[in-house]
């Protein structure tokens, strides 16, 4: 006892441990994986992986649409929740928004009879945003007010929204959008949209009350409630934003492919969750950032296009992808355990 208090006196409250942000781990991971694929590139194909600008562009394009979803999913996971519905919401929103974006010269346009063709681009955009927002709002309201686990609420939405996507046209794809709508997915536009949304929400999460409360709820929901935060209302807002961003991703995806199909976005929710977790966002809530998710997204992109580059069979790609997701969660659990042991 004497020794203990003496030691304490010598170091009054100096438990100053270097603060090692999980984003840094993710960044080191990204660099490591990049180097591995660069080396594999020379070994397997005798060419540079990163020396090819076209390949990098394709890689970024591939991941940035799911990245838009991941921005919303990150906020949900920071509150300690999960959103399994994003992929299906993408499918439903793409179908519905696209049917308000069709050209009048297409004789099978959904709303040809009503004359709702060649509409200004703002109409399908508002419809798409509203669809995503509605789905997210339902998720949030269920989770906040009926107290069912986020896993169950969003699983229900995952199934239902996929049903909506199929019901909307009885399974028929919706094609031929106006040029204006198609511009949403043209060239590097998806990447710019992703970057804009990333910047916006990074600022929101860092500098506003919304961000503070999102972290507080994930960190200690009871404390947040006792501090007077309206936890229920905040959760509805967070899930609504996640739905809204899934809606944005849906429109970009449909615009890029010039068509919407009811099977669009299948498994996107898991890819988005994987990017988030790989980026160091803790599934237990309260920790992580959108910068981490952006790095996680790049890791994801490098791995997927890296596998294709070294001509790994698609079957193996899926198997390994599953392993990476589980691995990232295992790393998170390990981090938490170590942290619990420290405090």
């Amino acid at each position, binding site marked *: *006892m004497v020794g*203990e*208090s003496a030691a*304490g*006196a010598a170091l*009054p*409250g*100096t*438990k*100053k*441990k270097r*603060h090692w942000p999980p984003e840094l781990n993710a960044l080191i991971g990204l660099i490591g994986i990049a180097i591995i694929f660069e080396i594999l590139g020379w070994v397997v194909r005798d060419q540079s992986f990163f020396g090819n600008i076209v390949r990098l562009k394709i890689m970024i394009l591939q991941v940035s649409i799911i990245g838009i979803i991941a921005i919303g999913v990150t906020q949900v996971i920071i509150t300690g929740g999960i959103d399994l519905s994003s992929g299906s919401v993408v499918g439903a929103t793409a179908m519905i928004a696209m049917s308000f974006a069709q050209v009048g010269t297409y004789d099978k346009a959904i709303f040809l009879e009503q004359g709702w063709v060649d509409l200004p681009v703002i109409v399908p955009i508002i419809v798409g945003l509203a669809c995503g927002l509605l789905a997210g709002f339902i998720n949030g309201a269920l989770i906040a007010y009926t107290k069912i686990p986020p896993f169950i609420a969003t699983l229900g939405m995952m199934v239902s929204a996929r049903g909506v996507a199929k019901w909307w046209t009885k399974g028929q794809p919706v094609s031929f959008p106006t040029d204006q709508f198609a511009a949403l997915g043209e060239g590097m536009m998806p990447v710019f949209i992703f970057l804009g949304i990333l910047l916006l929400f990074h600022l*929101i999460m860092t*500098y*506003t*009350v*919304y961000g*503070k*409360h999102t*972290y*507080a709820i*994930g*960190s*200690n929901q*009871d*404390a*947040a409630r*006792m*501090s*007077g*935060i309206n936890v229920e209302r*905040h959760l509805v*807002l967070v899930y609504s934003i996640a739905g809204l961003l899934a809606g944005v991703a849906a429109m970009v995806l449909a615009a890029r492919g010039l068509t919407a199909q009811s099977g669009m976005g299948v498994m996107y929710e898991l890819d988005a969750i994987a990017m988030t977790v790989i980026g160091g966002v803790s599934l237990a809530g*309260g*920790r992580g950032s959108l910068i981490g998710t952006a790095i996680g997204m790049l890791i994801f992109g490098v791995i997927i296009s890296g596998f294709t580059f070294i001509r790994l069979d698609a079957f193996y790609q899926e198997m390994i992808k599953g392993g990476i997701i589980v691995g990232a969660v295992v790393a998170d659990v390990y981090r938490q355990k170590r*942290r619990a042991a420290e*405090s």
Partner: protein
Amino acid sequence: MSDIILKTEGLTKHYGGVHALNDANFELRAGEHVAIMGDNGAGKSTFVRQITGVERPTRGKLFFLGKEVHFSGPLDAREAGIETVFQTLALADDLDVPSNLFLGREKTLLNLGPFSILDRRGMRKATEEGLKRTAVKIPNINNPIRNMSGGQRQCVAIARTATFHSKLTIMDEPTAALGVQETEQVENIVRTLKAAGEPLILISHNMRQVFDLVDRIIVFRRGRIVANLNASETDGQDVVAYITGAKTGAEYAGAA
């Protein structure tokens, strides 16, 4: 009397058939430090939950600063000026010290509803002042409090009261989980509050601490107040006798 900060009249709480709190009449005067003692389940925490708005009493009246009040939630009580340090610290581990102090009532630069811009510098400054007032030393207030010791975290919870100029501070066993040195730190904060004339209700099992810190001791037993003692006119043995029921205060005869 105008210097009465808090007063309860016949405060009663029943949980179904369990009479957790019966007819509690309690008074706290300006600048006074009062300890609430009693065995586990004697009704101390129930009493605190009623006056902090966590629960609503079955019967009875609550007066705060001369006015009858009905708190519909902890935030109500907090806005009225009653700041509570709960046994389970109501802190968010992943946030830094200013964020925790201002949780739920952040200072903002620009009001945009839920997206209001935080006044981070203002909160940091107010935090430093609050910590100074309670003489709490924390090496780096920008670290998440997860990395802090139990004592430091407790101090953060207590510093909230000083930052918001609360009119009444309630501490529910603030040192139960702390080491010797950390306990001393918390006790020093209590002394600082006393010197500043801030009233306090302290719930504690620690007899030495109670006699060291407070003016008056209230003893609960089986949901009732069985003694109201001046700390200077009583001793540990006496208090234990009341806690265990071996003795009952004259004015409370028949209550136990």
